[in-house]
């Protein structure tokens, strides 16, 4: 036993997803190393969201998805049910936030309390004092930015090892984008984040590694600064200029 090579936190090999007759993911291979932020990039419709959902078992997939938590035990996630996958310490903030509009903010957080984890309501309310004031308000009546706070608060409420965050700054005003990025950067000090993000300013600021998806396959992976420094490649892979804000 060498003990020097730690396995990656998450590994997907040859993952395929088919949805209503379309072959959406066509053999995705990727690894997410422990610690820091890995950005998952790609054009609209490339398959980023589907990749994240495949990890969570929210879409049926074939291939292997493995997770090696801090206990060092290698867990096969593929074929497991979503709630079992999540209980390994994987938090998810979906693309459209998906907070429960008919529940209050406090109920949204109570629902997110996971049995096998301590619950850090204090931490959450310290990060988002606004949520504390609005705890009895129905989440459906919150603004988009506030709903995103609830979605992130759900992630930080429990002890997680990996956060899957899908376009957290989508549709937010610039000031809120900065605030969300700030909160995520703080969270990243303690937990690994796989971040789907179109806003390259945020990517440049936070990401250590980058993975680019194109048409259901991995088109590039490596250190994020390397990708960001290569304007031609960024334009080719993402269809945007690196200096741009929102894609």
């Amino acid at each position, binding site marked *: 036993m060498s003990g020097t090579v730690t396995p990656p936190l998450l590994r997907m090999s040859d993952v395929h997803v088919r949805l209503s007759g379309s072959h959406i993911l066509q053999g995705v291979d990727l690894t997410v190393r422990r610690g820091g932020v890995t950005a998952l990039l790609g054009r609209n419709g490339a398959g980023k969201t589907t990749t994240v959902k495949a990890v969570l078992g929210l879409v049926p997939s074939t291939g292997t998805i493995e997770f090696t938590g801090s206990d060092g035990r290698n867990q096969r996630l593929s074929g497991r049910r979503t709630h079992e996958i999540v209980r390994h310490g994987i938090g998810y903030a979906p693309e459209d936030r998906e907070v429960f509009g008919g529940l209050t903010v406090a109920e949204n957080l109570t*629902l997110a309390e996971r049995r096998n984890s301590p619950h850090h309501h204090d931490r959450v309310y310290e990060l988002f004092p606004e949520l504390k004031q609005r705890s009895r308000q129905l989440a459906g009546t919150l603004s988009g930015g506030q709903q995103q706070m609830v979605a992130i608060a759900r992630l930080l409420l429990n002890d997680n090892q990996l956060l899957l965050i899908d376009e957290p700054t989508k549709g937010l005003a610039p000031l809120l984008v900065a605030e969300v990025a700030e909160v995520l950067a703080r969270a990243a000090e303690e937990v690994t984040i796989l971040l789907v993000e179109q806003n390259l300013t945020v990517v440049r600021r936070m990401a250590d590694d980058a993975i680019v998806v194109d048409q259901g396959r991995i088109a590039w992976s490596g250190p994020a600064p390397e990708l960001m420094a290569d304007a031609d490649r960024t334009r080719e892979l993402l269809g945007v200029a690196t200096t741009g804000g929102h894609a």
Partner: protein
Amino acid sequence: MSTVVLLTITGLGLAALYFLVASGLSLIFGLMGVLNFAHGAFLTIGAYGTWWASDHLPGAGSTGWGFVLAVVFGVAVGTAVAALIELALIRPLYERHIEQVLVTVGLSLALVALVRATWGADPHPFPRPEWTQRTTSVLGANVPNDRFLLIGSAVVVLVAVLAFLRFTRFGLIIRAGVENRSMVTALGIDVRRAFTLVFAIGGAFAALAGALGGIYLGSISPGQGTSLLIFAFIVVVIGGMSSITGTAVAAVLVGLVQQFANYYAASGVGDLSVVLLLAAVLLARPSGLTARLA
């Protein structure tokens, strides 16, 4: 005046039956997306379970606490059958809604046929405790007491369900699941346990409706559940498909319309008016009266 009072209270009694059946249907539909055709069979099972227990179960009988025990037995059987069906036949078809509906269709045929095979197609007289056979005078109308029993039970059930949904963790999960099932599982919650629970709750209420319906009608027959089921479906749709309060309001509406039209127009007109009411509601507001649970 006394006719109006009698019709109103009788209509509310009928509404109570509809509510008991429809509340379970709407919980199941709201959370699981399954239209449960077997629900009428749960009602039949509750009615026959109560009837059987009042004769055979030691301690049970047709009056007083013995009758209560018989009803408890009928409800317990209905609950158990519903929970077992969910576990054995619905759960394996997780998220395959058409197949799940088809299975409940098969069950509705098979279970009612089994009851008919066992106890015959003819109606059996149902035990009616002394008190329910007497009347109480309300504003000059002599109202049979069984109406009050029906209404009281439905109100207790309504309050209990609302409290359960509002104040318990399972209730929270159910409310959230009705909104967005997959996000609930993404929070690490095994939503299938809530499925079994709503099936069991729905089965219990339907079985209770079976026992109360037996008292109200004075007899039970195998097909009773199925004919009530259609009106319960109508109540569910008018009530917004997955809303408990909406279901309660719709049940009252349907019960009253049916009673009054059947009395003042002609027998059968009430039933027809209810269908017209459904069509009107659907055309005016395709999502029913209310759109949210609780």
